[in-house]
């Protein structure tokens, strides 16, 4: 039975933001009588992450993802609620917890820009108090795993973003964390570099057993890395289940790709919308809440000779966009 790496109960964070009216008068008034508006960034979220799990924590901009990560790493103090990360309360035992967790914030760098990555690794070895022999063996392992040997002694400013990100993640792992927080680890990377980073994170999780807590706007990251998804919006959890269940639950649309033995022409089918008809091929969209797939198929097969059929789901991106939209319309609770 796996133990829990992260346990969160009713975690809440409210920010007080200064507001002021427009114009010079507003600025002057704000000087003497500032108005504050309270923003609930995280509103009582509850969830757990098991050791060795890879969890995607996703949501639109401003949903509360980064704020949650920052509370779980001990950077932010919550307004209320509880959290335990690897058995510690992050904001009370931040320095102790830091020895066991790693973090990568995709838009920020932890490497020294003018120095080669090897210098940053050496520094981290001291910061995490890793014995010399242990550090040498772990660094060699990471260098091999991340294939960063050829540019280990090149100043970071001269590396490509993909090379830098491989070094960033290796740096976050140098102290052997049991849990790693990845905040947009593939942001700005090209498709090849993205794939490489995903494969590496996947190996770390599957082969090394490192617990992964990922936030990303890139659906490819989520699909490739995580089996479980937590969706947050407006600071609340609106979905917490497996990725497959997410697809099933929110899919009311199916796509049918047909290859006919005659030109598609003015193809039509009751209950289905023609998305595209070109040559012998037709793409149909079915709303499964209004009509069943087998009903549509029966109608098509009764009227046409079909050479090939492919039934597919909409891209995960669309599913997630739909969940976000429903959340905005007033759905969900934590």
């Amino acid at each position, binding site marked *: 039975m796996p133990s829990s790496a992260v346990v969160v109960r009713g975690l809440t964070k409210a920010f007080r933001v200064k507001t002021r009216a427009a114009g010079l008068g507003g600025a002057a008034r704000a000087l003497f009588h500032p108005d504050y508006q309270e923003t609930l960034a995280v509103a009582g979220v509850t969830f757990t992450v098991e050791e060795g799990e890879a969890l995607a924590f996703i949501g639109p901009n401003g949903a509360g993802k980064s704020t949650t990560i920052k509370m779980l790493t001990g950077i932010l103090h919550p307004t209320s609620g509880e959290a335990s990360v690897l058995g510690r309360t992050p904001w009370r035992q931040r320095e*102790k917890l830091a020895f066991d967790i790693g973090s990568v*914030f995709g838009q920020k760098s932890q490497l020294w820009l003018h120095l080669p990555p090897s210098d940053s690794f050496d520094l981290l070895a001291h910061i995490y108090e890793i014995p010399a022999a242990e550090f040498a063996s772990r660094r060699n392992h990471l260098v091999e795993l991340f294939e960063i040997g050829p540019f280990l002694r090149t100043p970071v400013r001269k590396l490509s973003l993909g090379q830098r990100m491989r070094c960033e993640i290796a740096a976050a792992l140098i102290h*052997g964390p049991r849990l790693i927080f990845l905040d947009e680890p593939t942001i700005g990377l090209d498709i090849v570099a993205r794939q490489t980073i995903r494969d590496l994170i996947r190996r770390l999780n599957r082969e090394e*057993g490192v617990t992964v807590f990922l936030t990303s706007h890139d659906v490819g990251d989520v699909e490739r890395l995580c089996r479980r998804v937590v969706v947050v919006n407006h600071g609340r959890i609106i979905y917490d289940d497996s990725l497959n269940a997410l697809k099933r639950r929110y899919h009311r649309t199916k796509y049918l790709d047909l290859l006919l033995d005659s030109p598609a022409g003015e193809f039509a089918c009751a209950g289905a919308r023609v998305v595209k008809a070109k040559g012998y091929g037709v793409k149909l969209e079915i709303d499964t809440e209004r009509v069943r797939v087998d009903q549509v198929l029966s109608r098509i097969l009764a009227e046409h000779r079909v050479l090939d059929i492919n039934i597919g789901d909409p891209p995960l991106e669309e599913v997630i966009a739909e969940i976000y939209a429903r959340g905005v319309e007033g759905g969900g609770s934590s």
Partner: protein
Amino acid sequence: MNLRGRDLHPSPDHRGSWLFRPGAQLAKYSAVAGVTTRSNMAYLADFFLRGIFLVIVMFVFFQLWRTTYSATGEDKIGGFSLREMIWYLAMTEALIGCFPRLTVVIDEQVKSGQLAYYLCRPYSYPLYLLSTYFGEIVVRLPVNLLIAGGMAFLSVGPLPFRPETIPGLALAITLGFGLNFTIAAAIGLLAFWFEDTGSFYLLYSRLLMIFGGMLIPLDVFPTAIRRIALALPTNLILYGPARLFVGHGAGAAEIWRLLGRQALWLGLLWLGLVGLYRLGVKRVNVQGG
């Protein structure tokens, strides 16, 4: 090989403890200072370019004071001969030119959210900053001393060498840097509360300029102003060490008094800095990003 820390660090875990692992803590902060020094080597050419400014400043000071001494017809002003005055200013200018842009750096780290990386590491953020601060000074100080000293030498000739004051002077300079650190870092941390810390730093730098003896030794001031200046910790950052450098207050008792006052103020200001940091860190407002 397994990368998970669980199997690598059996409990009881004394990592991060000054009590159980003081050597590891010292090594940690020394490594931070070392890497800052190496990183700053990339800017060495920049330091020499900035040295041009130091050359101009020293030239202006020399002309100004030479005219002043000849106009008054005095050999000494405030107890300083022209030679001592120029060497005094060489030291204050060399020291102030070493001060890293700490306030701006902290301000940016707080506002950009980069602070997040520093806060999820197993070290004390104030001590980390202190290490980077001295790591930068180590590169700048020799360059500045060389340029300012060279200018003073060319202007007024050598300063009598007093080897017995060197240990005290080195310590006084270090403590002076420490004092400037606590004040500059505290101003940077005000970014937790204020949108712009630039004005606070401007105020401090002006205070250092006038009451810190950067432009004129405090001995030249009227008694009342000198008393105020001597009561402030700012006089211990530049004036104290530079005065000792030119051989004023160079008796053992006076050196000890200077070091004692520096240490006392440093202790007080450090406590203030840590208190401010603890209050501020609860206000970290790194939403989004």
